[in-house]
């Protein structure tokens, strides 16, 4: 994914195991999306 591409509305899981879409978090002008290598 590079600038200009449109990201798919991915489905993630919450800590409770419930599915949640990426678009749910697009409530501001921009969203910083950070993919971690691993927790901690």
């Amino acid at each position, binding site marked *: 994914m*590079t600038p200009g591409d449109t990201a798919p509305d991915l489905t993630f899981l919450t800590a409770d195991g419930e599915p949640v879409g990426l678009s749910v978090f697009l409530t*501001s002008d921009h969203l910083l999306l950070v993919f971690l290598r691993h927790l901690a």
Partner: protein
Amino acid sequence: MAHLGEVAANVERFRAVGAGVLVVTQAQPHILSMFLRNQPQPLPIVCDPDRAGYRAFGLERTGWMSFFRPSVLWGYLRLIARGGKVRMPYTGEDVLQLGGDFLLDRARRVVFAYHSRSATDRPSVEALLAALPGR
């Protein structure tokens, strides 16, 4: 401080300029739940245990030998010098999976992309803030 700590410590700076923050981990939900009980975070974290999002954003896996590159070793030394800890991944996490940082607009259009090239390669918070359109 690891990348999550740096972003979490600056989350209000992003919000102040109109940017939300979402963190994605490859951990299983029960691992994230345990993590958040021990270390509550000021930002949302979601799980992508099958790493579909990592693949969709083009985030690669590194090789074992990459951990011995001087730049990577230096990155870990800097982390330790700043009081951070080098931790092993939780069960189910792929130690070779690399991360990345992306800025999206409301239409999910990518306006900034940073694919980590090694385990310790991350953009600074200042670089991420500077990458926001209009700044």
